[in-house]
Structure formats: structure tokens, C-alpha cells
């Protein structure tokens, strides 16, 4: 019995005769499957309750929100068809889509929006508690219309109504249940373009197309598979090999971005509306850092240009002032602290920390050990500080330990970590500088430096009352000047997320504000 050799090879998929890449593409066209990667098994698939990245990556195909934001920062309708903003910015009227169904078949209505925003977003979501703090009530005018009423003017509601902060949950499955224990944290029921059908721990998450999705023609793919791939190099190899089609910001190691962008089929998308920024937080309770000259000295000594060029070449932008330039309210009138080692030494002398045998004092620098960029930055900072006579203990820590010892217990001098400062400074920046954000016990990602400036606090209050965008900008200008002079935090750089995808397999992906929050509704096979 003879076997047709080509047929044999093709059927066994050995791929030695045919290259693996084209074989994968041949198969993909038959099944219309989109394959991505996720860094770890998500503990819960619920972007409405936690801000863990894997929860977003796994949950955004499943859930929707009132609006979505594209890569340029423009807001588009999602569950809300249209909206009106009152002149005083204190109430927002949203008109919802008709005939939307939850994945279990139940109809979607305004009651779901009221329930989600009042009980989940405002009370439990880490960012929502900030962004929607002033939400007093959500009125259900009719099954298709809701009005959000705020205690004070709230200019950024539209950008905060996206799935990263205000994902809408089904009331009939979440009301009167403990949100932590609810099994739908792992078996999500949403209104999104994909339905989660299988979650093989350690292996993959499998989604099927939602036949009732409210936008006709979407999604274009029948299936979405997210492979669990903890190793960065392995993810890139799989992308090159054609085994997966795309990698979002967090899945694509930044050191590989340049090389990957030069590959024939791969395109890079750039997102950054959330303004991810690496900050070096100073602990103002430490005796040395309590003095503003010391903080200025550090700013003159740390070579931020070198950090930008080596840690995230091509993707990092300088940050001058507390608000990164990608956000509209960033000031253009703030002067930077130039790299000036001599000046730094003089400032340290003035502050009373003279060098004895070349050494002045010691600082403890904490950072997350899993963040390879932070590891490099710590090395560079240590090197820079040594030139001005400051010795640094670099202490890498697991995330859990860092939250505890670093943030909560305040046992640090410097912390290098990544923050999302957008989409509006009121959401991402204010929490770092407002003395109202100093909690006991301290909470991570709030005002951990212990910065108190009564004038700045007053300005923040003024800013909240300002309705006129020009007035708001003026107040923010002052805020930035003052904070920059005090410098409780030294921003190292902000960066754009880089996503990679195989342009021969898919298009229409990653045109979103934050690449890890892509729903793939608009993705299309090529």
C-alpha cells in the first residue's frame, strides 16, 4: 500500500516539507480562530472588581461598558448609544442600546447599569472608588435611559466609563451575592463579543463568538484562544513561529519590540492613553529625603536620559512635571532638573550631608523583582547615586511583599514602580499628591510619600469645582508648578505600550487606549 507522500506530510502536519508558518495560516483560514497569549492563569475574570492585568486580558472580550476609548483618546459608544452632558458637568444622561442580551440569554437593561455603577464600581473597584467617588445616584428614567448624578462637577466621566473602570455586570447574577465569592468571577456572563467556554488551567482559555452581539458583523472571528504562556521569550518565539497571532503590551517584552518590529509579517501598534509611567517615590519621612534640597539633588544626579535609552529604547518619553505629556492637561511650562552631578553634590552639602570619605548616607530602594525594567532602573539609579556619594541598597521584592513592607508599612526610602497616570490626572495623578490620600494603614498606589501641602490640597478642591475646561487647565498649571518644586516623586519616564500582531493573520486589533483591554470585537481575519 503506497501512501501519497505529500498527503502524508500534510495530514500528519509534520511541516518539514511545508514551513510551519504557512501551514498554520492554512489551518487558520478554515476555522477563523484568533490566538493570543496571556501571561498567567487569571485568578478571576472580572475587570469590574480587580485591576490585575490578567483579569483584564481575559475579561475584556467578555464584558462591555458604556463607552470605549481608542488609541487616540477619543471616546466611542459601546453599551451606550449616545449621551448628553449637562452644562454644569454634574449629570450625564446615557441612552442605552436596545435588544442587548447577556450571554445567558437574559435581557440587558438600565437596571444592570444602575446596579453595577452604584454597588460595584463606586464601592469596590480600586480606580472606580476614586473616579466615581462623587457619584451620588444613577437614576433609571426608562429601561433605555440612565442619568448619572454627581455631587460635584466631574469632567472625565466619559473616559472613566470604559471597561477598565466601569464594566457592567448582570444584576440578576450579582445582586444579593457576595461579590468575592460569586462563582461568576470565574465563569463570567457578560455582554461582550466573546463567550468564555473553557478555562484549562495552565493551558488556555477558549472563547466562542457571541451570536447575539449587538453590533452586526462583529466579531468576525468564530473563536478566540488565549494560550497561557508565562515565559516572555517563549511568547515571542511563538509569535515568530506563527503559533500565536498577537501579543498585547504586557505579553510583549519591551526588549524585543525593536527586533520584532523588523520581522516581515509583524506590525506594531502603539497605545498609551492610560499614561503608564515609572515613578521613583521618595519617602518624605526619611530624614534625608525630608529635605527638599536632597530630593532636588537626586533629580540632578539620576540620569533619566540614559534610563530611557537603555530600559525601553524607542518607547519611553521624558516626563517633566507630575503629569505626563500624553495627557491633555500636562503643563508645557515646567522646567526640568538637568543632569548635573556637581550641582547635586552642592545641594547635598547645603542640606547638611557632607561627604565623609566620599560617602554621605545610605538609601533603601525597593522595586518589584518580576519587573525586568525596574531591575535595570534600580541598577542604574544605584550607579548614578554612587557618583554623588550616596550608597543604595537595592532590594527586589515580590509584589505581595512590596505591597506590605514597602507601601503599607512604609519601610523604604525609594520605590521604583509603574503607575497608570491616565486617562485623566484627576484619576491617576491626584491620588499621589493629595494629603487626603494618605491612609493609615497606608494603601498601595496612593500618597505613599507622605506629601502634605495645604496649598496644593486647596488647588485640587478648586479643580474639582471648575466646570470650564480653561479654568481647569489653569488650576492644573499651578498644581504642577508647585508639586514639581517640592518633588515628592521623581517621574522616570512614561511609555507607550507596544502591541505586536501578525498582519498576515489579523487586522483591526489594538486600536484601543490600552492594549491589555482589547475586546477583539473589531478584529478581522486577513
Amino acid at each position, binding site marked *: 500500500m503506497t501512501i501519497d507522500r505529500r498527503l502524508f506530510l500534510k*495530514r*500528519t*502536519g*509534520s*511541516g*518539514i516539507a511545508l*514551513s*510551519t*508558518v504557512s501551514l*498554520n495560516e492554512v*489551518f*487558520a483560514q478554515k*476555522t477563523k*480562530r484568533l*490566538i493570543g497569549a496571556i501571561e*498567567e*492563569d487569571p*485568578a*478571576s475574570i472580572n475587570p469590574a*472588581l*480587580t*485591576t*490585575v492585568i490578567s483579569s483584564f486580558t481575559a475579561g475584556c472580550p467578555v464584558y462591555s461598558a458604556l463607552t470605549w476609548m481608542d488609541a487616540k483618546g477619543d471616546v466611542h459608544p459601546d453599551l451606550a448609544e449616545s449621551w448628553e452632558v449637562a452644562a454644569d458637568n454634574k449629570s450625564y444622561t446615557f441612552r442605552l442600546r436596545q435588544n442587548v442580551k447577556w450571554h445567558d440569554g437574559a435581557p440587558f437593561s438600565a437596571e444592570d447599569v444602575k446596579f453595577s455603577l452604584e454597588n460595584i464600581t463606586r*464601592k*469596590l473597584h*480600586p*480606580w472606580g*472608588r476614586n473616579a466615581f467617588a462623587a457619584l451620588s445616584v444613577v437614576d433609571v428614567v426608562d429601561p433605555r435611559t440612565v442619568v448619572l448624578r454627581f455631587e460635584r462637577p466631574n469632567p472625565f466621566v466619559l473616559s472613566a466609563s470604559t471597561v477598565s473602570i466601569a464594566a457592567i455586570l448582570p444584576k440578576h447574577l450579582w445582586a444579593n451575592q457576595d461579590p*468575592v*465569592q460569586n462563582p461568576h*468571577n*470565574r465563569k463570567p456572563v457578560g455582554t461582550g463579543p466573546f463567550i468564555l467556554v473553557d478555562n*484549562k*488551567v*495552565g*493551558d*488556555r482559555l477558549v472563547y466562542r463568538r457571541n451570536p447575539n452581539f449587538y453590533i452586526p458583523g462583529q466579531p468576525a472571528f468564530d473563536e478566540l*484562544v488565549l*494560550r*497561557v*504562556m*508565562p*515565559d516572555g*521569550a*517563549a511568547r515571542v*518565539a*511563538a509569535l*515568530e*513561529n506563527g*503559533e500565536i497571532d498577537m501579543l498585547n503590551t504586557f505579553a510583549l517584552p519591551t526588549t524585543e519590540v525593536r527586533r520584532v518590529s523588523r520581522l516581515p509579517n509583524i506590525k506594531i501598534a502603539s497605545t498609551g492613553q492610560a499614561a503608564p509611567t515609572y515613578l521613583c517615590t521618595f519617602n518624605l519621612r526619611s530624614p534625608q529625603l525630608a529635605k527638599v534640597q536632597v530630593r532636588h539633588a537626586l533629580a540632578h544626579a539620576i540620569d533619566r536620559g540614559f534610563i530611557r535609552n537603555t530600559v525601553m529604547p524607542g518607547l519611553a518619553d521624558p516626563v517633566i512635571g507630575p503629569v505626563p505629556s500624553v495627557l491633555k492637561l500636562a503643563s508645557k511650562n515646567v522646567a526640568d532638573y538637568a543632569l548635573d552631578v556637581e550641582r547635586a553634590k552642592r545641594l547635598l552639602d547645603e542640606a547638611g550631608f557632607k561627604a565623609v570619605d566620599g560617602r554621605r548616607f545610605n538609601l533603601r530602594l525597593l522595586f518589584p523583582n518580576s519587573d525586568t525594567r525596574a531591575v535595570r532602573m534600580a541598577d542604574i539609579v544605584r550607579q548614578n547615586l554612587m557618583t554623588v556619594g550616596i550608597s543604595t541598597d537595592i532590594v527586589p521584592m*515580590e*509584589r*505581595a*511583599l512590596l*505591597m*506590605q*513592607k514597602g507601601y503599607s508599612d512604609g519601610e523604604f526610602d525609594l520605590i521604583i514602580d509603574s503607575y497608570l497616570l491616565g486617562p485623566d490626572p484627576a484619576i491617576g495623578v491626584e491620588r499621589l499628591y493629595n494629603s487626603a490620600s494618605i491612609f493609615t494603614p497606608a*494603601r*498601595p*498606589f496612593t500618597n505613599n510619600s507622605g506629601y502634605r501641602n495645604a496649598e496644593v490640597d486647596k488647588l485640587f478642591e478648586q479643580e474639582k469645582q471648575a466646570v470650564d475646561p480653561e479654568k481647569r487647565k489653569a488650576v492644573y498649571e499651578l498644581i504642577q508648578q508647585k508639586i514639581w518644586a517640592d518633588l515628592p516623586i521623581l517621574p522616570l519616564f512614561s511609555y507607550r505600550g507596544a502591541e505586536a500582531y501578525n498582519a498576515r493573520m489579523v487586522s483591526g486589533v489594538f486600536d484601543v487606549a490600552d492594549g491589555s483591554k482589547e475586546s477583539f470585537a473589531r478584529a478581522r481575519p486577513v
Partner: protein
Amino acid sequence: MHAPARLAMSIGRRLLMAAPVVMAIVVLTFVLIRLSPTDPAVLLAGDAPAPEFLEKIRAQYHLDESIAKQLAIYVGSALQGDLGTSIYFRKPVTELILAHAPVTFLLTLTSLVIASAIGVSLAVLAASRPGTGTDTAVTALSLAGYSMPAFWIGQLLILSFAVWLGWLPSNGMGSARETFEGFEWFVDRVRHMVLPVTSLVLFELAIITRFTRAAMVQALRQDYVAVAHAKGASQTRVLWRHALPNALVTTVTVLGLEFGFLLAGSVVTEIVFGWPGLGRLFFDAIFRRDFPLLTGCFIFTSVMVVLANMVTDAVVSVLDPRTAR
């Protein structure tokens, strides 16, 4: 003493010893976890979690109780087969372990079988020509696989065969692109096994070859070998029928004792190749401070080592009933 009786005794002895060891491991893990002042609840909630949210998680997992109480609760359930619930996955630990264990077994046992076959053959070859170039070459070759860290070998293999040549998949146990059935499914699985198994085989080869060879050399010096020669047995027969079974006693025993080491290689290989086995489960549990899962995995690993030793005892008694212990 008859072999079966001796075997039963040694198995019984191992079981008796295993219990306190496992208990010690559990206590040790609890103590270590207590020494580390971190909070898995914080990790689960993401950044800036609401305090009520944290409280709920803590209460659910008895994280606020004293260590003695947590230990008591744990041991009580463990004896009934319930190893607790994973904090991260919210699933029973036993279920998670049993779901991932077969993957590790598949990888470890397949490579062990292949490494044994190759290793023993190489060892016999080297032992039959002691001190020659062949002998040195075999030793050096097998040691090279051991000296290069298993993860490095794995990554180099991925680079060569998956990325540059494109012959084999770079990651995972099975293709995500296509859903195969029947024979094609089998072939796909085999393709995904080639590189990880090769990494592990290279790693395990050293131990097997080295110990077998040394034991062979010693066995070949024994009197009964000379007797066999005198009786006219051929070199091959002497090697394989007389010397090898005695040498294998040593090899098998060593494999049992070094099983923990072999598992280390397996863990690292699983992580490089993205296989959803116990290695990855264990490793992630450490970082997430998922105490129930961590303790469960550690116990399971130790139990596997004990079992491996029992198996090697059994094999040894079969191979050479004359072995005095």
C-alpha cells in the same frame, strides 16, 4: 530471607518513615509561610484594593487565625484527603494537583525511560572498554548534558529547532491553532514532546550513564564474572547477562535517591516549554503565597519521591535477590 518478605519489610519501613517526614514538611512549610510577612489576599485583589474586599478574602481562608490553629485545621482535612482550597484558583487543591500531575508524569517518565535506554547502552559500551577513547568520550558527552543547565539546553533547542529551522513547535503540549483528532492528534502531541523530552534526557543521561558505568566496571571485576568467562560465556553475554543486572542495582537505587533532583530538572523544563504541569503550579503558588496549594504541592512532591524509592526498592529486589541490605 525470601525476596518478597524482604521487599514487604522495606516497603513497610519506607511508609513508616514517610509519615513523619511528610508531617515535618507540612510544619516546616507553615512556619516558613508565617515567617514571611506577606498577604496573599493583597495579591489577589490587585492594586489599591478596598479593605472590605481584603477582609472577605482573609476570613474565607482563615488567614487571620493563629498558625497552630491553621495547622490543625489543615492536618485534619488532609487526613481525609482534602488538601484545602487554592486561594488563587478557588478550586480544591487536590483537584488542581491531580489535573496537573499527569503532565509532569508524562514528561518525567518518558524522558526517564529514554534516558535509561540510552544511558545504560552507553554505560555498557564504556565499561567494556575502560580507559579508552570511547570511555572518555561517553563520560564527557553524558556529563556535558548535566553541566549545561537544563533550562539553557531547552532554550537553545527552541531557538534552533523551533525558531530558526521551524521544524517543531516552540511551546505547549498541543497546537492551539487546529483541533486534531485521532492519529493526527497523537502526532501533534509527539511533535510537542520532542524538544522538552530531549532537554530532560540530556540532563538525566549523566546520572544514569555515570553510575551504571562505574557499577559495571566494579561488577566486571567480581569473581563470578571470571567464572562465567572460564565457562566459555561470550563477552556480550557476560556484559549484559551477568554484570549489568548487578550494576543496575546501583543505578536504580541512585535514581530513587536522586529523584528530587530529577524533578528539579523537570520543573525547569516544564517552565521553559510552557507545559501545564506540577512544576508551574508549584512555582506560581510560591509567588502568590497560595499556602494551601503550596503545601499541597510540596507534600505531593515528597510523596512522589518516597514512592520512587519504594519502586526502586522493589526493582532492586527483583534484579538481585542476593543483595544483602
